[in-house]
Structure formats: structure tokens, C-alpha cells
């Protein structure tokens, strides 16, 4: 396939090409560099400084990281947040993806009626703000209002009800499930789109071979949308390790009860801005952000080298 890049630049005078590139790329590159890349780099740089009470900053090398990972005062909450974040991510992977795949599979059944309606309705929560979603669920699950307990009672499971969001044992998983509820639309839509891309004839051929809908889905469709599923997973990973809004709006910066719902995003916020218990510390905050950056980077590398390579993309 001849590439789509134009060869027009070959005979363009250099100055003219430079002018065009400056015009087209200048604004995007300038804003992006200034407000995205530079802050990232500056934050990392700041993580190697510390400030004394007078506000003067001086270079301390990796001392902040040593404190963060070595000093129990810091490392305990850090590892707690990291562990919680892993659970948060694991719940997404184990619940969000299977539900997304199942819904996409059902939606892509040939001849299904009301397809558009279902799609629209199921994607709706994804469009809403995490803050609003979190707070709404907070009300619904609240024993004060009694909607959730009432609903459970109605189906005879009233004894199962507990103030899930308030209990140290269940708060984190409950919040994760709220987040899954909101964002299941994304894997659903992307996988649905990938399923639509599979040529009809392929499915027809399998039908002629005598496979039923179920078999077709598991043996033909699923392997073909594996690349999309792995893409969705990595998107989920980045979003999860950078999440903040939900916990903050439901549980506040302290991520209670007793830090049971603290994840890296809220830990970062508390470190940076401080709260009732401690003063804000921009240099330590930068160190936390830098560590988060490397965690995400590590995850991306693992994905690129372990997953991406094994997942084969098929051309139709």
C-alpha cells in the first residue's frame, strides 16, 4: 500500500515547508509542551528538592524517595494506597471487562431489536461526572435513605444489606464497583465496534460449518477482538492508577474509613495539599507524582512487551 504521506514536501522550498509546519504544528506543540510535558518534567525535578520552613528550596537528590519508601510514617500509607489501587484495578479487570464483553456480544447479535435504545441507555452513566455518580450511589447505598436495603428486602435478601460504603472491609470494593458501573460503557462500546468490524461472511461461514451463536462468539469473535480487549485493559490501568475524583467526592481527602479507600490519587492530593492531619508538602507531593508516573510507565512497558506482542492483530 502506498503510504498516505504526501510527497509534496519534496519539491517545496525549505523555508515554505518550515513556515507551514510552524503554522500547523506550532500552537499544538507549544501548548502541549508548556502545559503538559514541562509540568511533568518540572514535577520530577521538584521531587529532588526539599524546602525548609522559611520556604527556601534546596536539592536533596533522592532523599524524598528514600523517605517515601523507607520512613514508616510515609511508606505505610504509600503501600496501603498502592495495595488499594491494585484491588481497585483488579475489580475493574474482573468485573468491568467481562460485563463489557458480554453486553457487547449481546448487542452485536444479528437482528437484535431496540439495539440503539440499549446502547444509548447503557452508555449514559459514562457521560456523567464521577463526582455526581459517586455521590448518587452514596445516597442510594446509605442506610439513612434505605433504597438499597428496601430493594434487597423486596427480593428477600434483606439480611444481606450492610452500610457497605461505611465498612472498612467493603468500602473499597463497593467504590470499585460503582466505578465499574459507570465506566462499563467504554469496553462495551469499543468491543462492540470491534465486533461490528468482523465481516459478516466470516460469521456466515462459521454458521455453514455448523457452529451455534455461543461457539461462534467464543471461538471466532472473541479471539478477533482480543486486541481491543487488551487496549481497553491498558486504558483502564492508566485511568485506575490516576483515579481520584470518585474517592475524593464520596470519602473526602482522608479516604476513610481509616484510609481503607485510599488510593494513589488521594494520597498524592493529601501529600501535596495537606489536610486536617498534615501540612501540604509540594516537594513530597512531587515525589509521589513521580512514583505514580513510574508505576504507570512500568505498567505500559509490561503491556507493550508482554501483552501487545502476543496479541495478534488480524487483517480482514
Amino acid at each position, binding site marked *: 500500500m502506498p503510504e498516505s504521506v*504526501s*510527497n*509534496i514536501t*519534496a*519539491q*517545496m*522550498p525549505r523555508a515554505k515547508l518550515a513556515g507551514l509546519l510552524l503554522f500547523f504544528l506550532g500552537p499544538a506543540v507549544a501548548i502541549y509542551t508548556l502545559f503538559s510535558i514541562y509540568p511533568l518534567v518540572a514535577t520530577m525535578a521538584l521531587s529532588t528538592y526539599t524546602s525548609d520552613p522559611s520556604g527556601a528550596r534546596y536539592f536533596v537528590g533522592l532523599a524524598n524517595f528514600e523517605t517515601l519508601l523507607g520512613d514508616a510514617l510515609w511508606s505505610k500509607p504509600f503501600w496501603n494506597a498502592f495495595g488499594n489501587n491494585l484491588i481497585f484495578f483488579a475489580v475493574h479487570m474482573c468485573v468491568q471487562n467481562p460485563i463489557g464483553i458480554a453486553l457487547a456480544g449481546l448487542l452485536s447479535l444479528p437482528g437484535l431489536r431496540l439495539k440503539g435504545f440499549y446502547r444509548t441507555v447503557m452508555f449514559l452513566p459514562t457521560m456523567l461526572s464521577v463526582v455526581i455518580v459517586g455521590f448518587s450511589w452514596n445516597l442510594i447505598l446509605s442506610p439513612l435513605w434505605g433504597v438499597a436495603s428496601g430493594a434487597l428486602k423486596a427480593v428477600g435478601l434483606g439480611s444481606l444489606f450492610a452500610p457497605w460504603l461505611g465498612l472498612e472491609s467493603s468500602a473499597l470494593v463497593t467504590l470499585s464497583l460503582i466505578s465499574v458501573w459507570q465506566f462499563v460503557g467504554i469496553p462495551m462500546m469499543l468491543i462492540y465496534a470491534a465486533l461490528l468490524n468482523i465481516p459478516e461472511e466470516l460469521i456466515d461461514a462459521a454458521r455453514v460449518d455448523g457452529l451455534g451463536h455461543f461457539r461462534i462468539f467464543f471461538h471466532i469473535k472473541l479471539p478477533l477482538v482480543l486486541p481491543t480487549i487488551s487496549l481497553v485493559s491498558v486504558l483502564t490501568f492508566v485511568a485506575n492508577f490516576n483515579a481520584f475524583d470518585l474517592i475524593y467526592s464520596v470519602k473526602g481527602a482522608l479516604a476513610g474509613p481509616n484510609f481503607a479507600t485510599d488510593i494513589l490519587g488521594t494520597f498524592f492530593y493529601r501529600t501535596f495539599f495537606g489536610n486536617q492531619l498534615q501540612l501540604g508538602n509540594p516537594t513530597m507531593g512531587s515525589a509521589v507524582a513521580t512514583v505514580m508516573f513510574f508505576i504507570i510507565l512500568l505498567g505500559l512497558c509490561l503491556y507493550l512487551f508482554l501483552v501487545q506482542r502476543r496479541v495478534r492483530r488480524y487483517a480482514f
Partner: protein
Amino acid sequence: MANLRIEHLNKRYGATTVLNDVNLDIEDGEFVVLVGPSGCGKSTLLRMIAGLDGASGGDIQIAGKLVNTLAPAERGIAMVFQSYALYPHMNVRKNMTFGLKFTGVPPAERDRRVAEAARMLRLDELLERYPRDLSGGQRQRVAIGRAIVREPAVFLFDEPLSNLDAALRVSTRVEIANLHRMLKSTIVYVTHDQVEAMTLADRIVVMNKGCIEQVGRPLDLYYAPANLFVAGFIGSPAMNFFEAKVGSVEGGCARISGPGFRSFDLPATSLKVGDSLTVGVRPEHLGRGEDGPFAVEGVVELVERLGEASFAYVRRADDRLFVAEVRGRQTPTPGERATLIAAARDVHVFDAAGLRVTTQNDA
């Protein structure tokens, strides 16, 4: 109106050479058709003339002016694309005038040109329509109209008819021929269709693997192909080839023999005993008979009946197939033994390098 001169033109993409030392002189007002197998570099050559692709070496002159470094718009060309490339969000009139805005043509003059082109191409009714509301043939005419209003020195067409159905292709072909007669402009036209090439061209350029194999008037290419490639490429079904050797040379005549056909004498002076040759005869020049200057026999294996003619696939004694075009209602039947003969002037001989051997028959 202008002539077009291409000298030592080269095009490389990395290590692959797409055009190799192309030289071509096109007269003012001439209609030149480029043909060749897919991927031989026709579109590339056209795009380089247009200035859409840069050259890796060589010169292009339009109307005596070196245009190597000029932008497409400054070269005085107009191009019609296979996909028509109409701007989907502009109506027909806007499609035609859009480019003129930027080349300093005053509004009144723009309208005059559009009106004239519309009249010529019968587009008057369609000027306010959008491309999506036009048929394939109409889109094609709009694309041509957009080229005409630029009043270019050279028109470039890249397979303009290949997206049309057979009937429309014929009528549009006739229109393009008429247009050329009216405008008298220089045209370079790429096609896959031999009929288009033969009927439209003043001269045909046959290309292969980035090189020009032969340039000539349509019938010259047909009757005197310069080499094996052109011989095999022009004409459909393709020319039959027979391996041959020079047996003896006597008094300006060479005795040619080979498996599958009867030996014959060729009035050629350049041949030596033992030379390897290829003998070529077009299917339409083979007729049934007993004996002739060239005769080949075999068993009819398959007959394709097209109505106005039939193609007989005949297996020779040496187990190779060749094709003969048989006219008339009396078609051969499979299994039948047949002898097919051709006139001396219809027998083409090529040397070991694939070049045409000139004979007294050519005169």
C-alpha cells in the same frame, strides 16, 4: 497549449526504483496514452509531471520552461483523477471555480469559463448539485470540467474511465476524443484499457517496470512491436510465441525452425546460424488453411465462442497451447486436428535479447 519534454527522469523510493531514465517528447496538441502493467510507474510519471511527486533526478519541461521546482499550480497543468476527487462539500459550480479563486482569475472570467465548460460537457443542469447527487458519468464530466476551466497547457488523465460501466466508458471515450479535437490541447492519458489506448492516442507509450519499452503510433505498435514485451502487451488475446532457432543462412534468407511449427524462410540479413529466436503470431492473424508462409498444427482443445469470433485453444505437438481467432459461423470443434497459417508480414521475429529482428517483410 504546449509541448512537454521529459529528460532522464528517475524516481526512487528508498532502494526501489520506480522510474528509470524516462525520456519522452510530446508535441504541442498531441494526445499521448501511457499503458503498461499494474505497478509499472504510469501514475508516478503522471504525478511527477503534475508536480505532485518530486523527481529523484532528471528534468521536466513544459512549453520550453523547466518546471522541476514549480508547484503543481504553477506548471500550467490540470489533472483528472480516477476517483474524480470532487470536493464532496461543494456543488458542481463551486467545484469548478474553487481553484480559480486562488490563481487570480477575476469573477466574471470564472463565470464565463464555467458556462463554457458546462455547455461543452452538458453540465448546465447540474451546476447547483452536489457530487453525491450525481451519477458516475456525471461526476466524471464534472472532473473534466474542473480541469477545462483552468485552461491548462497540458491535461493529465489517470485512468479516468475505469470506474464507469462498459457502456458509459464507450460514450465518455468518444466525448474525450471530441474534446481533444475542440480544445487541441496536449493530453497525457493513463489507461489499462487497450481499446481506449488504440482509439484515443496519437501516440502510445508502453511502459514496463519503470522503463519506456516503446513509443509509437497505435498501429505501429500493433504491426511492428519493437520487442517481446510490447508484442505480448498490445493485442488481446496476447500474441502466441514459439521458440525457434536459425537452422541455416543462405543468400539473405534464414531458415527458421522450432518445435510445433513448420520451418520457414525469413528474409533477414542480421541472423547467424544457431541464433535463438522467438517467433510471434497474433491469434487474429492465424487462419485455417493447408499451407502458408507460416503454418502450425495441433489438436483443438477448447473453443470460446464470443459471437463475432471464436477463440480456439490448440495444443501443438510439443504440448504447448496457442490461440487462434476464428471468424465466421463455422467454429472448430474440440478434438479436431487443425492446421493454421499466417501471412509472412504477420510473423514477428525477436532475437535472444527480445528485440525485433527487422526483415524485408517489414518494408
